[in-house]
């Protein structure tokens, strides 16, 4: 098992190396990349099942035990994230290959994409805070490259903002690591969670807050999210889709991991996080309401929905954390699906600006379905996953008598519906008001090239399936949350073997 767990990290790296060697042949690059991701997906699935059945798998990289060596810890949370992430990466890669755009035009695309995949996988698996920093850097650097591949003016401008802010975040991360090592002499998560509680209380909560900010920037919470809506929409749509689906969620994952594992109850900044959650939900969705461009609306929704996850976490109850994890999975599926649909709209309509596309209901009804399903899921309609997720969060919030943050969630939920109907009316019902900049393509029978439509449709199917099969899935989430809320389990699994 321990070998299989590491594959989602190693295979993409090997693939990246090969892709650089095969720089000249696009076909070879694609074959390598697809194989690597398919295999990693299989591996991730296998490890999820195995871990849920037989418990956490811990891998000593280099054969040194924790804390002197680096350990990869595949517990339920990590493998859940790994599974959903690998599937998403695979589907989006197919879409990218199908789309006349970024992937075809740049020899670097596959290599960068593979390193992104490896980085994402590593940040979920690692049981070492510094390795998490490295994994973040892999992921981010690859994302810088993917975002600016076109080298157009827009991309360069937003690329600058994105890169600079991420770099500053990285410096803060380094500082946090330095200070943690100064105080505890270790960077291994399990080891840290043993030592941090022995520090002075003031220091503990200071560390908790510092990490909250460091990962809050990546997760794009209020007031640290402003970079996201400016930078994401400019990238090619498959790239934006993968960013929207995964990158911010990695930040949330890091938040969940560190806040729950490293800090005792007293040090957890629950109140601050609840405030952050509420503001993120509302301010984010208000941003969406103010926009008139499909991609920008969706980008603001990323932010708003992150608020829900933080809210679940900030309750620090089994119900809350379970809901948060479920919500992450739901969001990865729905957001990626929506952005892929957005890409199709752009392809078919020639623009992502609501006033420039329109009447798609008549011209591309298939597209209308592909949008409606994830959109309704996002707005929390049954039987899609969004319905369960929203309800679970409200239930958890009311359960802990946090009525104010729940009301914020309720408002955000309504505004989400508002802007979804706005997109629907704008892109699918309204007649076109102005001509698009780019030339529209013929949607054909399926609403676009099959290689683009099939992955998009898969996400639509996934959100319905997750909703319908929420019974077992949610039980898994509850088991996960119970494990997370008792750090001693993690510690003993990693240290005492």
């Amino acid at each position, binding site marked *: 098992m321990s070998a299989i767990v590491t594959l989602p990290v190693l295979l993409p790296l090997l693939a990246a190396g090969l892709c650089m060697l095969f720089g000249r042949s696009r076909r070879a690059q694609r074959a390598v990349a697809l194989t690597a991701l398919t295999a990693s997906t299989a591996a991730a699935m296998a490890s999820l099942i195995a871990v849920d059945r037989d418990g956490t798998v811990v891998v000593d990289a280099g054969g040194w035990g924790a804390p002197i060596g680096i350990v990869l810890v595949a517990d339920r949370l990590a493998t859940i994230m790994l599974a959903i992430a690998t599937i998403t990466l695979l589907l989006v890669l197919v879409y990218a290959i199908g789309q006349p755009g970024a992937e075809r035009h740049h020899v670097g695309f596959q290599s960068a994409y593979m390193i992104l995949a490896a980085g994402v996988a590593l940040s979920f698996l690692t049981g070492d805070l510094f390795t998490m920093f490295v994994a973040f850097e892999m992921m981010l650097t690859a994302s810088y490259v993917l975002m600016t591949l076109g080298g157009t003016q827009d991309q360069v401008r*937003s690329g*600058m903002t994105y890169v*600079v802010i991420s770099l*500053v975040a990285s410096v803060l991360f380094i*500082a946090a690591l330095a200070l943690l090592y100064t105080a505890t002499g270790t960077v291994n998560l399990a080891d840290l969670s043993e030592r941090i509680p022995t520090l002075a209380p003031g220091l503990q909560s200071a560390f908790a807050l510092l990490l909250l900010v460091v990962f809050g920037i990546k997760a794009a919470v209020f007031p640290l999210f402003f970079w996201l809506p400016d930078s994401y929409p400019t990238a090619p749509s498959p790239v934006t889709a993968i960013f929207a689906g995964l990158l911010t969620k990695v930040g949330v994952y890091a938040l969940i991991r560190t806040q729950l594992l490293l800090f005792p109850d007293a040090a957890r900044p629950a109140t601050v996080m609840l405030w952050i959650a509420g503001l993120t939900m509302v301010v984010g969705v208000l941003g969406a309401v*103010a926009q008139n461009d499909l991609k920008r609306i969706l980008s603001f929704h990323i932010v708003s929905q992150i608020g829900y996850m933080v809210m679940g976490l900030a309750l620090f109850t089994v119900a809350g954390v379970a809901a948060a994890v479920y919500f992450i999975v739901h969001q990865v599926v729905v957001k990626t699906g929506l952005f892929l649909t957005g890409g199709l709209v752009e392809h078919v309509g020639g623009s992502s600006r609501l006033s420039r596309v329109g009447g798609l209901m008549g011209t591309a009804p298939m597209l209308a379905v592909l949008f409606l399903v994830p959109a309704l899921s996002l707005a929390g309609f049954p039987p899609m996953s969004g319905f369960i997720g929203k309800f679970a969060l409200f239930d958890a919030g009311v359960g802990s008598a946090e009525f104010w943050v729940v009301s914020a969630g309720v408002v955000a939920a309504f505004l989400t519906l508002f802007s979804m109907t706005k997109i629907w009316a704008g892109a699918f019902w309204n007649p076109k008001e102005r001509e698009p900049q780019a030339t529209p393509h013929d949607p054909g029978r399926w609403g676009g090239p099959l290689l683009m439509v099939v992955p998009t449709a898969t996400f639509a199917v996934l959100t319905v399936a997750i909703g319908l099969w929420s019974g077992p899935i949610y039980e898994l989430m509850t088991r996960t949350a119970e494990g997370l809320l008792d750090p001693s389990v993690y510690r003993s699994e990693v240290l005492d073997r």
Partner: protein
Amino acid sequence: MSVLLAGAAAALFAIGTYLVLQRKLSRIIIGIGLLTHGGNLLLLTAGRRGLPALIGEGDPSELSDPVPQALTLTAIVITFGVTALLLALAYRSWLLSRDDEVEHDLSDLDILLGRGSHEDDADLLERLEQLDDAEPPASGTDPT
């Protein structure tokens, strides 16, 4: 760590911040360089100082703490790679606009200056007047 080094790191952070908060990318890059120096200094001084960590150089207790050194080394390399990328961005931005200024995000400006036109929300804003005075709306049948 000594007060001096802590102070040095803090000062590097402060100066770096001052530079990062500007609009010229090349200044920002320099600022980030200083910030990372500060971060690396913090990281390195997180460990005990002493003889070079070569086994046999002296009694293990006199050796400097090797772990932060390894971490810092990794950090240095990573930031180097990313800085190269950032420079490429500045270079590209100059090729495109003869400048390395980090411009405002235009769509944001539109909304800030109230130019975020809600042309697409016509349906939301349009009033069905006939509902207030008793004029009938469009006939309900499909034209046959």
